[in-house]
């Protein structure tokens, strides 16, 4: 316990909060810009240089709005849900190494920590759906639960593949072990499965069944407004960052790269993955829930299992 320095904790918490907000501002802007350009539009152009402050303006608008709870809602659950979905993501940012030295909290079990806390996000979605006394909300929450059951096993199997390659649960050591060859080239199948899984994990299109606008209005956050809605929003974009950072550490060699300093390489790789997710969102139509479950159980699970087996056998030989 003595090795924890209070100053270090405070600075890293402040850093994480700043990181989360800055990242949300940037990624939302990037998303809207990309969406615009892919549909031959400009995207936001008015607030700031090419609309870069648009997210900030929207945030101020959202914060200044009133939070209205439906009259039959379970108020405790209703208010708790956004907090439950946001706070674990904050904590999950702690063990992510931006370089060999820049990380908030060094732990041997960093990978497990991030995955375990990521699971709590779905709990928040479920509580939101349940607490808001709305059939669309409930359907969205239940869909999110079905989704988590379908993708979590393939996700864990791919993660285990990487763990047995690196021989450690520590994110720093996993990144260190890829100094030469990135895991993305050693484990292309696992990389592809993981890319699909992070899209599933963050509830983004084409797998945004939990909030499908065209079917469920806005799914689990139909009843949310103002600050609570913006917390869900922040949670989604922070979770995107965490998932992309985890993918960078596990498959893209973390901070390794020539010429540029390590943290910049890390950020570049993370933003490449974030752009990939945005690209998916604006290209693919939403799949149906049964198609998603079929894919999870019948495609991702067997392939990841076979991949894991082959890796284990090859390593044992």
């Amino acid at each position, binding site marked *: *316990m003595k090795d924890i320095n209070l100053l270090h904790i405070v600075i890293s918490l402040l850093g994480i909060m700043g990181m989360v907000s800055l990242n949300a501002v940037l990624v939302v802007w990037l998303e809207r810009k990309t969406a615009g350009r892919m549909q031959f539009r400009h995207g936001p152009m008015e607030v700031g240089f090419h609309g870069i402050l648009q997210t900030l303006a929207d945030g101020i608008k959202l914060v200044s709005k009133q939070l209205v709870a439906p009259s039959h809602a379970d108020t405790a659950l209703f208010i708790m849900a956004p907090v439950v979905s946001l706070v674990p993501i904050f904590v999950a940012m702690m063990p992510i190494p931006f370089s060999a030295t820049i990380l908030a909290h060094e732990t*041997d*079990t960093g990978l497990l920590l991030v995955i375990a*806390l990521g699971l709590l996000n779905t709990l928040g979605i*479920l509580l939101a759906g349940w607490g808001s006394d709305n059939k669309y909300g409930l359907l969205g929450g239940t869909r999110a639960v*079905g989704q988590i059951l379908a993708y979590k096993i393939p996700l864990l199997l791919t993660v285990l593949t990487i763990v047995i390659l690196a021989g450690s649960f520590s994110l720093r050591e996993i990144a260190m072990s890829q100094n030469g060859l990135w895991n993305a080239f050693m484990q292309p199948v696992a990389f592809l499965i993981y890319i699909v899984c992070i899209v599933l994990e963050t509830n983004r299109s084409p797998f945004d069944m939990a909030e499908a606008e065209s079917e469920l209005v806005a799914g689990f956050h139909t009843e949310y407004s103002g600050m609570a809605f913006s917390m869900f929003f922040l949670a989604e974009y922070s979770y995107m960052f965490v998932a992309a950072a985890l993918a960078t550490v596990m498959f893209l060699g973390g901070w390794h790269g020539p010429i540029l300093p390590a943290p910049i390489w890390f950020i570049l790789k993370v933003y490449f993955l974030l752009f990939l997710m945005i690209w998916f969102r604006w290209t693919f139509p939403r799949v149906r829930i049964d198609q998603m479950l079929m894919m999870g159980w019948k495609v991702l699970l067997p392939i990841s299992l076979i991949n894991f087996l082959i890796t284990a056998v090859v390593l044992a030989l």
Partner: protein
Amino acid sequence: MDNFIFKVYYLSFAIVLAQTVAGGVLAVAAKNLIHCFLGMVVALIGVAGLYYHLGSPFIALMQVMIYVGAVCVAIAFGLSLTRKAGEEGLKPLSPMAVVPVVLPAGMLAATLKGLSHLEKTGMPRKLDESIIGWQLLGNYLFPFEIISVLLTLAVIGALSVALIRRREKNGNI
């Protein structure tokens, strides 16, 4: 500074204790089943905190992952599938209620009496947990394999039990 850190540590332990107890009571006594579920989640996270304070972050994280991530989500799923209004809450208390009070109390008294003869061993230390892996595939290989078989059987069993109706209706799965 050190003193302050220790204060924070003790405070976190007190919070974990309070959380576990409150969650447990909520899980058992709440009228609404979803509040029970919530209480269970709170208690399980509290127990994970207890594991952490016992010097085992690995078990704590496995607890969060398996219980909060998988079991709780599955329970929530079952909850939403089998929910029916008017069936929640507790049965009226009966003399049977003495059992869950007396039995653990008696066990606790016996245990504490036994413990009072031993000397204090001090604060739990964090140990190297990679040994767990070696132990699992060494000394405990047989139980480990049995657990694996049990899990597989449980999944197959759960599937077949849940699919009985559909098989009867459609003639196949």
